[in-house]
């Protein structure tokens, strides 16, 4: 057991070492969300009437945080697909280590990278007027929630990364699936402007519950959804926890199984 944990951490360390050796990767991972903050804050911010104290940026920041951690799965999927392509997964599989170590290590590594990204985004947000008003405990809790969500999403990435033939395919697959998910939500605009069907979708979308939960924890609660008193919109944090548990419960065993049977392309 201890051995397996150590193996996981060695794989995690490998990923962090990659960031040291090729810092450009981390720099771009930070620039992109920072750019989103600035674009949404100054391009859409004027057009969307927030109706909350402190203005649109209070609602925007939790949205961008969630979008960013949701995209964790892109890094996971592409990284693993590359390892597959290069035969590195074969080598790992020929080592006397637990089957779960490589994939758990990977998801932990991607989560660690999220810490850095979130801190930088928080600072950028602060610079453009974001002021969480709930106190240090709840703010910390919110960031913890975000990391947890990134970790859960990362497991979907594992399955994608091990299933595709090429890293580029993983990249595209993630983009076309996660991008709509983050926009068909309350992250950037109120859902009430959407067609009725999409409103229902947005209401049950894990991204929406995460965003609403984080807004609550940052001190700017914001009702959402087609039916004002639905369970997800009333209990966004609980709903998010349930989603995360479901994602991990489904994708962790599938991913480990996939890894076990993975064949190099």
């Amino acid at each position, binding site marked *: 057991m201890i*051995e397996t944990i*150590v*193996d996981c951490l*060695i*794989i995690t*360390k*490998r990923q962090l*070492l*990659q960031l040291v*050796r*090729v810092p450009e990767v981390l720099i771009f991972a930070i620039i992109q969300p920072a750019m989103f903050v600035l674009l949404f804050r100054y391009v859409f911010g004027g057009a969307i009437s927030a109706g909350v104290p402190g203005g649109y940026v209070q609602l925007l920041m939790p949205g961008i945080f969630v979008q960013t951690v949701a995209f964790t799965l892109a890094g996971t999927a592409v990284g693993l697909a590359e390892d597959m392509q*290069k*035969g*590195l997964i*074969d*080598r*790992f*599989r*020929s*080592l*006397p*280590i637990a089957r779960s170590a490589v994939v758990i290590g990977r998801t932990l590594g991607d989560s660690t990278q999220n810490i850095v990204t979130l801190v930088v985004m928080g600072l950028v947000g602060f610079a453009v007027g974001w002021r969480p008003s709930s106190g240090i405990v709840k703010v910390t809790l919110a960031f913890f929630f975000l990391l947890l969500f990134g970790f859960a999403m990362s497991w979907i990435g594992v399955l994608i990364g091990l299933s595709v033939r090429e890293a580029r395919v993983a990249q595209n697959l993630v983009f076309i699936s996660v991008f709509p998910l983050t926009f068909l939500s309350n992250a950037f605009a109120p859902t009430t402007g959407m067609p009725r069907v999409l409103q229902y979708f947005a209401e049950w979308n894990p991204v929406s519950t995460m965003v609403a939960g984080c807004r609550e924890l940052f001190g700017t609660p914001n009702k959402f959804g087609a039916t004002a008193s639905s369970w997800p919109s009333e209990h966004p944090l609980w709903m998010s926890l349930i989603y995360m548990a479901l994602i991990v419960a489904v994708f962790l065993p599938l991913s480990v199984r996939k890894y076990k049977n993975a*064949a*190099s392309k």
Partner: protein
Amino acid sequence: MKSILAENLTKTYPKGQVKALDDLSLDVEEGTVLALLGPNGSGKTTTVRILATLLNPDSGRALVGGIDVTEHPDQVRQIIGLSGQYAALDETLTGWDNLTMFGRLYHLSGTAAKARATELLERFSLTDAAKRPIRTYSGGMRRRLDLAASLIIKPKVLFLDEPTTGLDPRGRQEMWGVIDELVKGGVTLLLTTQYLEEADQLADDIAVIDHGKVIARGTSDQLKSTVGGERLELVVEAQFVARATELVATTLGVPPHIDESMRRITAPVTDGGASLIRILRALDEQQIHPLDIALKRPSLDDVFISLTGHIAEEVKND
């Protein structure tokens, strides 16, 4: 003792109807080198993947170091090293990073992993490149590092899947030198190759494999003798072909084979050098000067063609 024993392995991949392995059996004596020689798609890599616990066979059984690969893969992984067709390394990390990481994953202590990395980098002449990312390495350097990574735990059994495919002649020579050293150190080696010369150079024993089956097995000399012994090849100017042919026939007492377009006369010989001298004397008396004359031993290419009816493809096409 047999370090590798495979019995009646079969494997059909779900997507293809063809059998990748069709009742393949082989064995490798401890401390010896077996080359699996065959063209692309003949089942070499599948065999290695099964023996290295990466793939389960549909039927049959395989023992490595006396341990069943499907029943106790974890124990097998403790005693094997695998170096695949592509350098399986983290390209963004340095050579040093890679070796220490793999050392730790083999459960060496931090200090032991570092010591082993230093030792291996030294041994494979990579010390100068140790702190450079792998992506700056040449093909030969990558392969050497990849091999080094498979030697971290001093494996009893080593699998090298096409260790020199894609390397330039110099890289190949270097790699051969390194493998030769290893073999002297007593490791049991299963090597796959499409290069006939490579099998000849490195292996004690060769198993020729085609369509998932071992179609011939023996030492390089044994395989060559299956296509016959030495032959004499003589090339003369066009106007002398007829006379030279007659001369060869009378001197050697066998009808030679003539390739008119190449002006080449070929005949089997039994007493090698002596026949050569007799032919040269006879030619000299008739004032025919050969453009080329040589005693040829059959190459493994000849063996392959005579066994399979087709030439070994040396170009990767997947």
